């Protein structure tokens, strides 16, 4: 094979990967749009698309606009942005730490946010803004503590995971305690929140989530290139001239912000942060930035799970229960596969 031939081969490979990437993303966007529309159309009464569009444009008639604009639209927006946030942030952690199991759910970052939010809901009865702020602060503190503790002599992802699980245990004890001391009438709300739910979302309270995602997601997307270098390991990344500490800090900060704000808005929707990355990688293959597809997969997961939770059963289940039930088997499957391969 001569030089020009080889260059064609390399180019073709890149072109193929890029084509696949574009197709997958386009498909994901289309599905997400369909799900969004479905979220607006479906409910106790089903409205046709025209009515939905009309009420979104501001025309009000027959109570359509109340159902669509006040109940279904915020729910859809909450799902959309929470999905993006969980998907992108989860993928960032997984790629950076080179381990699909090292995601905010298992490391206890979500639990940190949950504790703060629950404390505000159950004990302080504070406003939504306070809940957001508290959960961001708690999420960041948890993340910082985990990283400090796992620094040790040499940084190791294994140690990070163990420390995270320890934190997780402590925080879940706190959650149990908060659920014990909470007033009886607040408990169902708290539990519903804890399992992750889009219920009762309102546009004004979603504002922090929307702003955070619009700010942080682009940062992570732009840094996606660095992320693919970081994936090669600390030593190779340094050798390639990447400022690893700075990159890592930026990525972690944006991700934790997104996770914490999304958690405060919808509760910890189980496994979305964990599932999105690996599913996206399956779809687009290795070699192209996984950030955007992961975010889109997150959106689709949350919206689809919410629709299933609302309409598939006699009882309405919050979205987190559905993602939890879907994600758990996958988690175990992944674990088994990793163990078999000896990649742990």
């Amino acid at each position, binding site marked *: 094979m001569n030089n020009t031939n080889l260059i064609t081969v*390399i180019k073709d490979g890149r072109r193929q990967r890029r084509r696949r990437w574009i197709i997958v993303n386009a498909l994901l966007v289309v599905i997400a749009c369909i799900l969004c529309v479905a979220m607006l159309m479906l409910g106790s009464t089903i409205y046709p698309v025209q009515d939905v569009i009309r009420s979104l444009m501001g025309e009000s008639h027959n109570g359509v606009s109340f159902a669509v604009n006040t109940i279904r639209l915020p729910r859809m927006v909450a799902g959309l942005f929470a999905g993006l946030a969980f998907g992108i942030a989860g993928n960032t952690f997984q790629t950076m730490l080179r381990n699909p199991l090292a995601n905010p759910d298992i490391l206890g970052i979500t639990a940190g946010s949950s504790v703060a939010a629950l404390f505000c809901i159950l004990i302080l009865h504070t406003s939504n803004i306070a809940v957001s702020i508290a959960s961001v602060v708690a999420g960041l503190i948890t993340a910082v503590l985990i990283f400090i503790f796992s620094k040790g002599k040499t940084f190791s992802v294994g140690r990070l995971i163990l420390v995270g699980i320890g934190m997780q245990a402590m925080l879940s004890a706190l959650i149990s305690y908060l659920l014990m001391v909470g007033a009886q009438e607040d408990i169902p709300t708290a539990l519903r929140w804890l399992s992750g739910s889009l219920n009762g979302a309102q546009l004004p309270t979603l504002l922090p989530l929307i702003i955070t995602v619009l700010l942080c997601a682009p940062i992570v997307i732009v840094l996606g290139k660095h992320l693919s270098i970081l994936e090669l390991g600390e030593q*190779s990344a340094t050798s390639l001239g990447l400022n690893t500490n700075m990159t890592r800090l930026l990525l972690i900060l944006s991700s934790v912000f997104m996770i914490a704000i999304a958690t405060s808005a919808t509760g910890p929707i189980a496994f979305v942060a964990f599932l999105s990355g690996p599913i996206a990688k399956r779809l687009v293959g290795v*070699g192209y930035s996984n950030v955007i597809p992961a975010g889109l997969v997150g959106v689709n997961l949350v919206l689809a799970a919410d629709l299933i939770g609302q309409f598939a059963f006699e009882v309405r289940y919050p979205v987190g229960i559905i993602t939890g039930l879907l994600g758990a088997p996958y988690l175990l499957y992944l674990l088994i596969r990793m163990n078999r391969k000896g990649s742990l």
Partner: protein
Amino acid sequence: MKLTHQFQTEEIVAGYDNKTILHGLNVDIPSNRINVIIGANACGKSTLLKTMARLIKPLSGKVILDGKSIDKIPPKQLARVLGILPQSPIVPEGISVTDLVGRGRYPHQSLFSGWTKKDYKAVAEAMEIMNITELANRNIDELSGGQRQRVWIAMALTQQTDILFLDEPTTFLDIAYQVEILDLLTDLNRKYGTTIVMVLHDINLSARYADHIFALRKGKLIAEGEPSKVITSKLVKEVFGLDCTVIADPISQSPLVIPKGRYHGHKDSNR
């Protein structure tokens, strides 16, 4: 032809935690040569290599490239001059050969730039040098140890650095692959003038392939220079604690270390 660089360390002290491994080392790396660092286990050879390649920050002292301390040089700019192949690099799961090799172009690209002709050429060239063009579309997971090592070196090559550090590039490889890798590295040095600095375990292969040898003992440099001058039975005793005879390698005339041991050849030595 690669550029000539002045590369030296100045009184570097390095180590982990409270344990100092290097005690004030001064090393001057001859440019455009193959340099090999030898020494017994835990003598600090790998630490020295990593410190020079800025994977470890020295506790005190400086690593100097062309008169400038390397921590003062912007990382990407530095990455265009010196690259390192770590001892056990990490492979992202399912990555293809060209993709991995291509990642070596990172220091030559900006955040938003796509791939240019130069990038493609560099990848193709590196793959040709390392003789892995046939593997272009394969997955790294499917490759043998020797093939993988060539892919990794190819990645370091696409970085197109003038100086290349390698931390035991031949460990875990069969003897045939060891020779093959060292031959390829020699090609690289002879053809392009790349300065190579590596740690090798095998003293005989070191003696054969090196232009310049650094012998370390307990974090101190005790000898350096051409293999034929440096590698003597006295030095081997001092560095490795091994009684040996040094003869001339029948093929390359470089020194060949023959260990004595306690069981063989006593009659001969008595004679």
